[in-house]
């Protein structure tokens, strides 16, 4: 159990961040929405500020803990390319991803977000499990 404290605590910071943006700015902290609108040039300065923070966050972590978070990308590059395209198209078509639907949508008890979260979790589990068995 003790191994999962950083995950729980880190998750709580994600929820705090989403709450801050909701109460201060009046908007849902959905990362696919923020990145998508930035790419379209909508509310560019605000969305760029959030994205800059997102990239700065690991450096703040490194300042506190001495190193950037460890990270392993195991997939081959054609898989990464396909995965990126699917995540990009799918998150915009489905109006959100793990942050907007998965965190705030669930907290708001939005039926659309509950359906979306159940769907992408099921698809993710199916894909990763099949990939693990086959690859």
């Amino acid at each position, binding site marked *: 159990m003790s191994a*999962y404290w*950083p*995950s*729980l*605590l*880190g*998750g709580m910071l*994600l*929820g*705090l*961040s*989403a709450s*801050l*943006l909701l109460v*201060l*700015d*009046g908007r849902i*902290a959905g*990362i*696919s929405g923020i*990145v998508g609108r930035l790419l*379209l040039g909508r509310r560019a300065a605000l969305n760029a*500020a959030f994205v800059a*923070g*997102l990239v*700065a*966050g*690991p450096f*703040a972590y490194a300042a506190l803990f001495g190193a950037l*978070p460890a*990270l*392993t*990308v*195991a997939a081959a*590059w054609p898989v*990464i390319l*396909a*995965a*990126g395209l699917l*995540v*990009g*198209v*799918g998150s915009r078509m*489905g*109006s959100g991803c*793990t942050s907007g639907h998965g*965190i*705030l949508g*669930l*907290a708001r008890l939005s039926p*659309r977000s509950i359906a*979306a979260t159940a*769907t992408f979790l099921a*698809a*993710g*589990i*199916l*894909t990763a*499990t099949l990939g*693990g068995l086959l690859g």
Partner: protein
Amino acid sequence: MTARALLRLLAALAAGTLFGFGLSLSGMVDPARVLGFLDLAGRWDPSLAFVLAGAVAMAVPGVLLQRRMARPVLDDQFHLPQKTRIDARLLAGSAIFGVGWGLAGFCPGPAVSALSTGLPPVILFVAAMAVGMIVHDRLLAGRHS
């Protein structure tokens, strides 16, 4: 720039930094950890469930507070999703997103945050994701949505 616009910019930067820090602390910037949760046949890692539980637990008081407020602190009105219908686009899009998520272990937040490492596969993923978003928003959805 008005004082309120500057404060909005700082709020977005602070919220983004807190989000990136939270992703780092929780281990979710690491796609291997995410796949450890999604891959039920491998050595299962429950971390992601703790992350989601912690995040929702802290988002609930934010939502309850928001519902008591007439307007957000730094804006004149709330900008919340108005759609309520569970339609085919929502489910198809979520399924497509889920397949991509399960293939590489990256979703948008962790992927963008992981750019901080400068690793080529992360840059490739984010570039492909950006292309996917632009293709959807400009070609598939039209400019209105």
